[in-house]
């Protein structure tokens, strides 16, 4: 039940928040905070309880729940949670809270509907991280899309119509390939096992002809690469980020992009291990390209949020590189990079939002010298900018370096290319600081510094960065079994015999 409650809590709170607007202006915010805090507590409870299970490393799922839904089509309500999904769900609830906090003063219109959409996206994200039936997965995948589109289209900035539409079109086009591949997999299962099935376990056990696997892999990869986003499918991202409200940007960067990486880790590689190995050089090349391309374009920007958006592309390039390097270290690094990037970029978007609220511009040519004006904001921007350039002692360093350590042995050329991204990252991150906070002030202005609430939440994010930078073991230990299993399955893939004894239709729950 706890798995369903993780999804259901935000989804139930969503209409509640919408309705509560009629009661008071702040009621939707408090409902959202309550729901997400509850989710966070639940996820942390699972984390604290299952330490023994995590350590043992056997058994794929820490928690699993399955119930029949549409047996005719082989669709089951199958959810499962392992270390990977656990870490990402904790991140989801945490960043969800941050998104609510960062909208506190920015969103003043249709507050209820805003939080309805916010909670709906988050419910979808949690669902994506838990679903083990590809049909259900796809439902949640689409559930994230529409509310996110509305968040940008309704509460966004200048170009919101264009940007939200572009976001919708790109991700929907990617989803189309994903859907085709999912349906094809289910049909393929009928051909080999006699019945349709969307169930992860069934499909995992299926033997697929190499050529078919290659095409299906491509479908999955396209769907997830657009979301990640990998170059050259990334161009929706800068626009979407620039025009999204702060809370939307936090969720978009911190969580939605992570669903793309999660899809690669959970589905693409395990379902098509050999095809993925063949495809790895292409994906790694895209990853390395993304690192350098994103960094160069980040430097070229004059818009604060656009710069951060392009830096996201560079950071996710490390994740893509690590995922397809397929070594334990690289995969662990990729997961760490997802978490670290969620925090650092989320925080930078919150700071960008705070700046825009005060200056009514994101144009860095009209900033400069803000250190003396808003010292707390400046110090925190400095902190998260150096986190994002990969300073050791902070979380992004662990992610990037584990990816690079893990990739070097098998793919030295890509690794060296990616490593040069460290120089490029320094260039854009320091440029961001120089253009906005250092130098001479454009005029003598007095601006209010961060509110207590915003300061406290950014400080919490900074603490997480430091914690993961100096003591990443809790996260690494949690995800280790999932990563090792992925690697084991990859090496054993050739010897797997179709196993029909998996009870896909029975309902079971284990805790």
């Amino acid at each position, binding site marked *: 039940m706890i798995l369903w409650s993780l999804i259901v809590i935000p989804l139930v709170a969503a209409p509640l928040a919408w309705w509560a607007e009629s009661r008071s202006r702040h009621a939707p915010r408090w409902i959202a905070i309550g729901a997400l805090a509850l989710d966070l507590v639940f996820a942390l409870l699972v984390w604290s309880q299952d330490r023994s299970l995590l350590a043992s490393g056997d058994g794929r799922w820490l928690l699993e729940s399955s119930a029949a839904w549409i047996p005719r089509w082989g669709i089951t309500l199958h959810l499962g949670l392992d270390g990977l999904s656990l870490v990402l769900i904790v991140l989801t609830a945490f960043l969800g809270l941050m998104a609510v906090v960062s909208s506190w003063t920015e969103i003043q219109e249709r507050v209820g509907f805003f939080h309805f959409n916010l909670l709906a996206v988050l419910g979808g994200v949690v669902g994506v991280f838990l679903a083990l039936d590809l049909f259900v997965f796809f439902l949640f995948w689409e559930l994230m899309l529409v509310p996110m589109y509305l968040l940008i289209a309704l509460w966004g900035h200048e170009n919101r119509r264009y940007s939200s539409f572009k976001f919708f079109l790109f991700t929907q086009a990617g989803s189309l390939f994903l859907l085709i591949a999912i349906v094809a997999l289910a049909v393929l299962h009928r051909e080999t096992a006699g019945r349709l099935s969307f169930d992860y376990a069934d499909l995992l056990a299926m033997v697929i002809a190499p050529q078919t696997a290659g095409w299906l892999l491509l479908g999955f990869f396209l769907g997830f690469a657009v979301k990640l986003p990998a170059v050259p499918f990334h161009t929706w991202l800068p626009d979407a980020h620039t025009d999204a409200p702060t809370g939307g940007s936090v969720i978009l960067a911190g969580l939605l992009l992570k669903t793309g990486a999660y899809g690669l880790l959970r589905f693409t590689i395990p379902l098509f291990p050999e095809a993925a190995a063949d495809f790895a050089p292409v994906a790694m090349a895209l990853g390395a390209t993304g690192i350098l391309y994103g960094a*160069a374009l980040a430097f070229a920007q004059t818009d604060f949020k656009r710069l951060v958006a392009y830096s996201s592309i560079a950071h996710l390039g490390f994740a893509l590189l690590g995922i397809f390097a397929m070594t334990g270290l690289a995969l662990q690094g990729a997961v760490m990079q997802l978490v670290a990037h969620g925090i650092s970029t989320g925080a930078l978007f919150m700071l960008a939002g705070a700046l825009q609220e005060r200056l009514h511009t994101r144009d860095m040519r009209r900033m400069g010298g803000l250190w003396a004006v808003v010292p707390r904001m400046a110090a925190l921007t400095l902190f998260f900018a150096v986190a994002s350039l990969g300073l050791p002692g902070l979380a992004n360093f662990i992610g990037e370096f584990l990816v690079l*350590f*893990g990739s070097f042995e098998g793919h030295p050329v890509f690794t060296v290319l990616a490593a040069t991204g460290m120089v490029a990252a320094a260039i854009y991150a320091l440029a961001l600081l120089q253009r906005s906070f250092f130098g001479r002030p454009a005029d003598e202005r007095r601006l209010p510094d961060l509110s207590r609430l915003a300061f406290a939440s950014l400080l919490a994010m900074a603490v997480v960065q430091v914690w993961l930078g100096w003591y990443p073991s809790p996260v690494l230990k949690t995800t280790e079994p999932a990563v090792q299993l992925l690697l084991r399955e990859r090496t054993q893939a050739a010897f797997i015999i179709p196993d029909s004894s998996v009870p896909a239709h029975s309902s079971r729950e284990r805790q």
Partner: protein
Amino acid sequence: MLKLLWLIPALPMAGFLLLALLGDRFTRRHVAWVGVGSVGAAAMINGLVAVGFVRVLPDVTSYTQTLWTWVETSGMATGIAFHLDALSVVMTLVITGVGFLIHLYSTEYIIDTGKAGVSAPAGPEGDNDEGYRRFFAYMNLFVASMLTLVLADNLLLLYLGWEGVGICSYLLIGFWYREPENGAAAQKAFIVTRIGDTGFAIGLFALFASFKTLSIQQVQTLAAESWPVGSGIAIAVAALLLAGAVGKSAQLPLQVWLPDAMAGPTPVSALIHAATMVTAGVYLIARMHVLFSLAPPVHDAVAVIGVLTLLLAGCSALVQRDIKRVLAYSTISQIGYMFLALGVGAWSAALFHFVTHACFKALLFLAAGAVILSLHHEQNIFRMGGLRRHSPVTFWTFLIGASALAGMPLITAGFYSKDWILWEAWSAPLGGPWLWAGGALGALLTGLYSFRLVFRVFFGDVRTKPHGHPGPAMSIPLIVLALLSLGAGVLELPRTLGDSPLFSQFLSSALPQLEPTVDSLVPSEGVLQLAVTLLSLLGIGLAAAFFLPARGAVEHVANTAWGRALRMFWLEGWGFDRLYEVLAVRPWRRLTRDAEDAIDAWYDGLAESLRRFHVSLSRTQNGNLRWYAATVGLGALVLVGFFAF
């Protein structure tokens, strides 16, 4: 007492956290107590630990303390762990000792800077409590990072310290952030060193791929066992580590950032850009000496880089006008000596020069800071002069520092360390007459440029009227460092003069020592000493001849067409900045001139062609009945034709 080891980096780190998180409630006095006190306490603990270490020597030559596991997953196991041996004892003592003195000096200097406000003409950022607190917070963080660097038990933790000092250097160079030039200098320093760091990082990846460990001890043991001398992988890894070292230590070809780094407050230049951080490269090579011994071409390159750097920087120091830039180039040049020593395998000699250089260069920078303060932030030596009567403390301490830098024989520490390096440069198995000649020529240049400073600044006519005198917080560090610059030579007396090799004996447990050579082709130690001494004195004498009378022959030579061209060339640091401007900066700017995403243009094109297609299709829906009839007919014809054939 060794158990206290972790406190040495932890105390300055605690100071940083205190200042960063709670400092806004502190008065300046509190800030000074925390900032100076944390480093002072670290220095005291360091003294205790060093005493404890000497007591257990020679039975125990190293001590490792693991605090907690850091990155432990999928076959990697690194801890937050410190490793103490003779090498790190020397490094930490210099860092905490000199660091403490410079912190003490800064308590007065930074207040005065704010009051004078000349370095920060645009505003008050040094003059408020925020600036004061920010300064000491960054300085404490720097000391903590530097101590982590030299105490790290594994290369990943070393890299953490390595990047940590880099970011502190960036923050402190850009401390007066209102001036865009300071920001540019800070970014340049960080980015240029990060180019080297990236090489260093790739070296770490390669080491880990080979040995599955990052422990400094294990890596070197395994490398010595499994890599033959001169093997490709050993050469590649050593070269990559060297890239990191030349970046951090401002050696050719990555030396360009250090002169610009003088934009930071003078105590920063003293601590970071002279005494400690820039010698991190020297430490790295000494620490990884086994790897360099396995890669003879790279090891030779270290010596060659050292000699070339010390000569190039020496020439540039000769013609600078800014007092701090002279000292910056002299730092590059002196680290060149250390690289020369490392390159011939004289590890201990390099470390000895590091110790004496830390004392006399910190002294020179701090004394220069006192000069600069008393002259309303004038840094141009051509607008200085006659200061020796105004402030005797500043004059005498600066003179001692300059003498040590020039290697004034017998009475200064610089003489002993430089002498040792030059002796090894010829007599060591990897050395030779050419390396010695380069170093000896450098000694001449050093005498010349350091006394050019002395004579320009303290002799002749008063050109800018000085005001104020350094208070006790500034004077005490000056005097202590001056005494050290004179006396530290006794730590290692050469065979010809007392024969008391305390320093090399102490280091022998951590670093291999060179055997005294018996090659008859090498002149005797005494002869070489005499030659270098004469060259140094010649340099000082030339400086007196050229610069004591205000205008002399040197002006005449310098103003010829050739002289002017050469002077400009040296002034600009041999054109490296221009070269990099053309090779790297401009291409990068051209590449990033356009904020538009080229790939997006492709999608825009797709959208546009779809729109056109839609427009042309919608044109067919024109309401004209004859047109509809004609197209229906034509369509039918095409279909019939298609199926018929």
